[in-house]
């Protein structure tokens, strides 16, 4: 066969992407199910075991707000790959999407929570990372 290396190239691409995914899982908290490393069905660390919590900070208190459906994609990306940039991107989108009725707030806080199960499957949620985003155009 001429150019015998040609048919190997797709598998080389698979290996490169797969190794990058392993790195991204350990370095950036990527879900093992995502990123092309074939880690699906290998861990509970996916889907409902990852949660975002968005709150408006007002003085010393905070009020939890829902992520609107039109930001599902941004939220899904932040949940699968909860880097500072992705959580911040969700925060910025949220500040733009908030209705006027949301009122005045100092900052918007995006938290990423993760679940761990013990032997009895008793779940423990822990805060893995969080960012705070100032409202668009300063104090609202």
């Amino acid at each position, binding site marked *: 066969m001429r150019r015998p290396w040609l048919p*190997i*190239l797709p598998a080389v691409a698979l290996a490169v992407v797969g190794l990058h995914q392993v790195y991204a899982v350990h370095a950036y908290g990527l879900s093992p199910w995502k990123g*092309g*490393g074939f880690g699906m069905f*290998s*861990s509970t660390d996916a889907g409902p075991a990852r949660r975002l919590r968005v709150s408006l900070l007002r003085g010393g208190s905070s009020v939890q707000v829902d992520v609107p459906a039109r930001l599902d994609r941004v939220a899904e*990306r932040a949940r699968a790959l909860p880097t500072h940039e992705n959580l911040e991107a969700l925060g910025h989108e949220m500040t733009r999407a908030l209705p006027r009725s949301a009122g005045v707030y100092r900052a918007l806080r995006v938290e990423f929570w993760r679940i761990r199960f013990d032997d009895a499957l008793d779940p423990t949620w822990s805060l893995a990372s969080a960012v705070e985003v100032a409202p668009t155009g300063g104090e609202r």
Partner: protein
Amino acid sequence: MSALRDWLDAEGHDLALKGTLLLLLLVPVGQWNVRPLVLLLAAAGLVHRGALHSAWLWGALTALAGWRVVDSWPLADNHAYLLAYWCGAILLSRLTPEPGEARAVSARWLIAGAFAFAAGWKLLSPDFLDGTFFRVMLLADPRFEDLARWAGGLTAADLDASRNFLFAPRIGAETTPAMLVESASLRAAAHFLTWITIAAEGAVALLFIAPLRAGVARHAALLAFCAATYAFAPIEGFGWLLLCMGCASVPVNAVRTRAVYVGVYALLVLYAEIDLAAWLVP
């Protein structure tokens, strides 16, 4: 039987290409910006022999499948990546004097790579090895509810309560979660699934990596994996893709092996239409 043999002989290396295009019609992929073009190209390749062998068609499919992965990174499922690699492999095979042989090499190493990573992840995940993953999945994933009811002897209400217990938002402990209902038989099923999955995926990876002269064991392992896994896992698209690649790696004169690939491909069509697990639950 001789008609089937004649058909398989006539199809030759085209069988895997047609199977790939058919799966794109059976499970349309991508969003609005990708799906219509993929459907058009798949249909064109199936009805027109020239299109089936066109580098342009496979180049376009590779670009669309690749774009789907890049555009949604990192959210695409693993079979979206595998589809892009496989379409790319078919495209590259057009640049070689023996496209069928080139595809056989690509398919073998893509299957070996995918299964090696899949088995590796499971071996490196503590919550998979100790059975936690399958216990949680059987209790909480609605896609496996029938299997959990059959294997674990649980009711739909038990599973609802367990789902609430496992994933209730207890951040700040605002709620009192429901009770976990887990039977001994469900734990046993979870441990069985844990080890059979590692054994099956590891076996496929090793057999496709090993330099075997006769690939009967290799194909038997992949066919058994697909026939068993996709009876319960509702992701037939992945199964069809693996079967197409497996079929492409079969020598063109091994008609019986390719006939079994066609049979299991058809079996997965039945799985997609008939909920086997639901039959098992009274």
